[in-house]
């Protein structure tokens, strides 16, 4: 199978989630899915833009969808749920002529043609397929017990995202099962981790991410698997803050799902950027016989 699709990496992929970016690109290449980066892409505006103004937010996002369309890309994929939400919201709202005109005014372009956007998770499950993923596994993650955490906006609201279930998504669970891991049913799959409150109100992130870590620990999993740069950062980098604020002592490794896919496909720990994770994942991988 050969697939080719436009690619929007998102800003955090250039910094705090560099291992998500690296593992996504490496895994997609190994699967034979060609990702072509949108030339000269810019920031989607993320949460700050949509909390200030919807036209500004849509203009920052639509610039990228227009650049992609001009480069001949019909569909674009992104690993980041926050980028995904902004880009999808922009195209959805721009179906309204008056709104589109306001956005076009800020962009000084026609905005006549915009590429479609979907998550890398959706491309893997719907375009590539779980069976095809399974066929690529050479080193199954047998013995690794994981909880899949999707974050709050990967699938919500459902009218906008149109992928998987808004309350009980299974895409990542199914991919992890295809990789041979034991996936435990995680009840807080779509509960918010505290999102972008990390810097201005870290007490909120400590509480919300702390609840997620408690639930994962209660399940007895070896690791949490995520698909969002902000979720991963809040659960991993800020795990020590959650522990300090709530009197817990979690040492829970938090992976990007692409990192575990890569390991199961025989790619190296270095290729998957495992050393970028804060809570050391090596003990659980060694216990499971993966490393």
């Amino acid at each position, binding site marked *: 199978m050969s697939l080719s699709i436009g690619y929007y990496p998102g*800003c*955090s992929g*250039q*910094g*705090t989630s*560099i291992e998500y970016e690296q593992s996504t690109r490496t895994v997609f290449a190994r699967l034979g899915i060609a990702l072509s980066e949108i030339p*000269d*892409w*810019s*920031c989607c*505006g*993320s*949460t*700050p*833009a*949509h*909390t*200030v*103004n*919807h*036209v*500004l937010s849509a*203009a*920052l996002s639509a*610039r990228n969808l227009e*650049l992609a369309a001009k480069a001949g890309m019909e569909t674009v994929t992104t690993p980041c749920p926050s980028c995904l939400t902004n880009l999808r919201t922009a195209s959805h709202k721009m179906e309204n002529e008056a709104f589109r005109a306001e956005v076009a*005014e*800020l*962009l*000084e*372009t026609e905005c006549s043609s915009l590429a479609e956007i979907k998550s890398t998770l959706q491309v893997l499950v719907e375009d590539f397929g779980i069976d095809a993923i399974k066929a690529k596994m050479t080193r199954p993650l047998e013995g690794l017990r994981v909880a899949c955490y999707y974050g*709050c*906006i990967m699938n*919500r*609201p*459902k009218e906008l995202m149109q992928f998987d279930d*808004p*309350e009980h998504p299974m895409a990542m669970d199914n991919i992890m099962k295809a990789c041979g891991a034991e996936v435990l049913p995680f009840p807080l799959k*779509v*509960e*918010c981790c*505290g*999102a*972008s*409150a990390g*810097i*201005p*109100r*870290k*007490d*909120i992130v400590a*509480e*919300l991410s702390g609840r997620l870590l408690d639930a994962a620990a209660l399940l007895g999993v070896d690791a949490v698997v995520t698909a969002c740069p902000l979720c991963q950062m809040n659960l991993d*980098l*800020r795990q*020590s*803050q959650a522990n300090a604020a709530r009197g817990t002592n979690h040492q829970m490794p938090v992976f990007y799902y692409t990192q575990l896919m890569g390991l199961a496909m025989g790619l190296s720990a270095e290729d998957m950027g495992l*050393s*970028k994770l*804060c809570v050391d994942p090596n003990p659980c991988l060694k216990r499971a016989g993966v490393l």
Partner: protein
Amino acid sequence: MTTLKMEADSAFKAEVARRSGQDVSLCYQCGNCTAGCPYNFAYDIPVSRIMRLVQLGRRDQVLGCRSLWLCGSCQSCTSRCPNQIDVARIMDVLRHMSREAGYATERNVKVFADSFLSSVEKHGRVFEMGLVAEYVLKTGRFWTDVDLAPKMLPKGKLGFKPHNIQGAEHVARIFRRFRGEPEAAQTTGGESK
């Protein structure tokens, strides 16, 4: 103690409805949004009560509350509303109105958002290190996350240089046009859109 203007402001309810595209009257106070709201523990007014206060036209009480700034847009309320009201969008619109009215009830949240957007305006993409530096300078919170520095720095995740893109000026112009600044404000220009 703050004194609140208690008389109903029907223009407020109409403005929220117009800007959000949502029929605020449909809310019958079932409380499902509040029951599922992860941020409720930190809110001063629960989201279902904000909906009621909008129906009652309590402009000052709503636009001045902390909850608007703390909402993480997690879409739980929107997903679970039995009347299909896009509650998260209403919260977003109330935030816009709160900003426009000059409120900054959770000042650090506002400064963080402003610092983020100023980084995008400068570089076209977010420069994380620059964003944190600007936030720290504006809030004076020099101890913010110093505990994380020893974890982050050796990982080489935080770049010390911004990724400037060719279209940075196009992105900057989006911001200037949004603020209604005259085109004469352009000093460089001439790059491709």
